[in-house]
């Protein structure tokens, strides 16, 4: 008598995705860190103990809680104008995330469309885009950003646009290379053979297949933009006081570095943690969504 063959149950795509997400340590660590920072940024008005702009000259340079003289009243101490450091840090996260995200979106749209067009059409289009990329790469980002900001004045909007218009090169290079590979695939031809228009081929055949590369570049570029903003603010050409930007906090604290190193140490650490979290997550997303690792 033959035994009934047990039916093989395949996990659904969603289950596979969840399993792969939960087993990827780097992704989890990055995601949790990013989640905490974003939560702090979003809920800053609720969570922050003080108004970040409120100066109190009688409470200047209070040490953070782990130092002698520190107290829980100001867990991370106060700066030289008596503003609560923890509150400023939380509001500063808003600036960093907003700027990183917006600059990434702007540069992503520019770089992706240029890159995909160059990779797909090749020939003259490729030559023009190649020239644009080379021209862009030959410009030192910080220098150009400084010059532009010095010319037209600095505000958060200006910085977002300047950075967005300056850091699209990696998008373009990566998208161009991946599109060139995909262009030769039979399914692109097959899509043409069932009557898809060029735009449709680009949007529904090429774009989904370069998406995991796109996400990795996007996360790297968020981190890149955040670091650039910090650098610009440090140089005094970025976000202007009294807005609480992390780069600005480092700049404002550099005079007190010798006796109170934490004024630099705290925003610096948070900045590197945020960048680390974003990069870990980007790598994780790539590993999780890569088609070769499915099933």
């Amino acid at each position: 008598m033959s035994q009934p063959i047990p039916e093989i149950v395949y996990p659904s795509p969603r289950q596979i995705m969840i399993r792969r997400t939960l087993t990827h340590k780097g992704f989890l660590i990055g995601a949790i860190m990013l989640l905490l920072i974003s939560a702090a940024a979003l809920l800053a008005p609720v969570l922050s103990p003080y108004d970040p702009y409120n100066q109190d000259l009688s409470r200047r340079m209070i040490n953070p809680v782990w130092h002698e003289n520190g107290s829980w009243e100001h867990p991370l101490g106060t700066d030289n104008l008596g503003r609560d450091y923890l509150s400023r840090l939380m509001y500063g996260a808003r600036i960093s995330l907003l700027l990183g995200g917006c600059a990434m979106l702007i540069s992503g749209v520019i770089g992706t469309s240029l890159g995909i067009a160059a990779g797909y059409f090749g020939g003259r289009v490729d030559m023009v885009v190649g020239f644009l990329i080379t021209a862009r790469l030959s410009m030192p980002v910080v220098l150009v950003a400084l010059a532009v900001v010095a010319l037209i004045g600095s505000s958060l909007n200006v910085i977002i646009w300047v950075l967005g218009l300056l850091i699209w090169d990696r998008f373009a290079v990566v998208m161009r290379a991946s599109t060139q590979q995909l262009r030769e695939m039979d399914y692109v031809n097959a899509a043409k053979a069932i009557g898809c228009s060029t735009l449709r081929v680009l949007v529904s055949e090429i774009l989904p297949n370069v998406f995991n590369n796109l996400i990795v570049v996007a996360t790297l570029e968020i981190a890149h933009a955040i670091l650039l903003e910090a650098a610009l603010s440090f140089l005094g050409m970025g976000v202007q006081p009294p807005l609480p930007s992390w780069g600005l906090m480092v700049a404002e604290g550099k005079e007190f570095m010798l006796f109170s190193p934490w004024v630099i140490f705290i925003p610096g650490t948070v900045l590197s943690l945020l960048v680390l979290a974003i990069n870990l997550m980007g790598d994780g997303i790539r590993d999780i969504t890569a088609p070769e690792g499915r099933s």
Partner: protein
Amino acid sequence: MTTLLNIRALYVNISLSAGMLHAVRDVSFHVERGETLCLVGESGCGKSLTALAVMDILPSRSVRWAEQITLEGQDLQNLKDRHMSDLRGSRMAMIFQEPMTSLNPCYTIGNQLEETLRRHRSASRREARDRAVFLLEKVGITAAGTRLKQYPHQLSGGLRQRVMIAMSLMCGPALIIADEPTTALDVTIQAQILSLLSSLQKEFGMGMIFITHDLGIVARIATRVAVMYCGMVVETGVVGEIFHSPLHPYTQGLLACLPVPGKTRPGEHLGSIPGMVPTPIGDFSGCMFRNRCSHAMEECCHESIELYRVSVERAYRCLLSKETCLANHMTQKD
């Protein structure tokens, strides 16, 4: 009824840094409803480019020119891009060589099948799904309903090729172009796919252009054959005549390469064609086969050789007379 597909004097040129590559030259053929035309030839002889030229999806840098390309009496050359894409997939469909890369890994099978129908007909999601299930069952895929939700990487090569075939049938095309659909598959699957294709073709009354380099497949599936060499059709005819009495020296050479059951003894050397295929870059004249041909004469270098028509369906491109060709074939056979 009009001829399904009629092609007269098709040229495809590709501009390379080394010069103009004349990839397809003066190719003419026609396909009737319900019959299979096999394009045969070695790699790089322009078979696939001919197919892509018919669909008008040639790679960039290549230019198509033809005296006439008509599908069901409709001229395809002066058609606007938009109208041309309306025809692609609905009136003529293509099956590609590599089943591993011809499905988009980002979408489910069902999604890709339904897309074809929804692109061309105002079909609801429901109708498209039903049609997809119906065709998947037609091409011999069991549990079609669950297969629709799977991604290409979950299917084997043979299954994927079946899905591709189902996809090409979604809109009920009049013409199917199959570009070496079985080359990437193993022999048993190959046989299944071939019989599937020919039974589907009979059932739906489609014309088919079948591109292959495998003469065994030709003998099995073809109604008529066009042998291509170096971008040109060197011989065309009904399949039996081509195999029984090949006229062009190239066709004779190709057939001599095949082992004949019961006649070729173990250990015996099979025939081969000496030399290499020349690359048709730049200007040239005369017969492209002359440096590999044992019957080459001086005239072969100079004259441009026209297709010599023997009967309605039979033609060959050689200076030798039909009788000489046949005699050559007889001596070669013995």
